[in-house]
């Protein structure tokens, strides 16, 4: 069965405060001379390798798994599942 690469991006909803992103922006990036950067949000990415018949099947299975096993907390975060062409 073919192996597909799928990325899962877990990030907090846009209205949730992100003190880590704010600190990186204010105390490193802007102080370091990159004033053009307007915002930074920290997120988590999981890189998966998945056996499936098709790329679509791989993506659907990962999506289902993320919801069922709470890889993200839906109260707080959103979760994007993207397949990566190899």
């Amino acid at each position: 069965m073919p192996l597909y690469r799928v990325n899962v991006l877990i990030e907090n909803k846009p209205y949730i405060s992100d003190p880590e992103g704010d600190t990186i922006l204010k105390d490193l990036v802007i102080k370091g001379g990159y004033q053009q950067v307007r915002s930074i949000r920290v997120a988590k990415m999981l890189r998966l390798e998945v056996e499936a018949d098709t790329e679509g099947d791989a993506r659907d299975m990962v999506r289902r798994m993320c919801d069922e096993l709470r890889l993200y907390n839906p109260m707080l975060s959103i979760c994007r599942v993207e397949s990566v062409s190899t």
Partner: protein
Amino acid sequence: MPTRIGIVVFPGSNCDRDIYHVLRSVMHVEAEFVWHKRDDLHGYDAIVIPGGFAYADRLRAGVIAAFSPVMQGVKRLARDGVPVLGICNGFQILVESGLLPGAFMRNDSLTFTCRWTRLRLSVNGSRTPFTLLLEKGRVLNIPVANQEGKYYADEDTLREMERNEQIIFRYEDNPNGSIHDIGGVCNEQGNVLGMMPHPERACEVMLAPSPSIHGSASESGYGDGMLIFRSLVSYIEHRWAS
């Protein structure tokens, strides 16, 4: 029948022995450890899920533990009205299991925060078995120790929790940025309580570093955390008697 309390132990739990000490040596009730692979919890009068770092907080505090066999047993007991107390990481596990509403985030400070806090009871004590002996508005001195301790719930959920009187404790001195100063919540039924501060670390006066935080129970030689465990035991004994 003697009171029998189960203390759930996950790989990474680290407050299990503190709770055992309080229940056995301070409260003089029967307590035993329950390994996370067990799913039959029949016969326990109450369950305590202790603090620590179950599964090293990997992915997100509490989420991996929430899928362990023991949580199936805890859910069955919770459904039957048996008191379940989750402290710190135990609170996070109850949230991730869906037994309590909400979510946890990293503290606003982004650092591990370990300090004494003042916690106010926002409802009547009779709302949960763990607050039975307390009057509404009572302030307890109990320490927190957490890094992902910032409680969050969306506005709709908060409104519903307010309506159902599920917000049990609020910090007087919010240590981590928790929304609405929330430090402890219960389920709709009231038998499942999650709290971030550690009452087991505030049961004996010798553990409080200064007289100002000994708490109002200190004249009896005990700290304020003792009121949580005394309430629970009193609830169980009353239930047996009735």
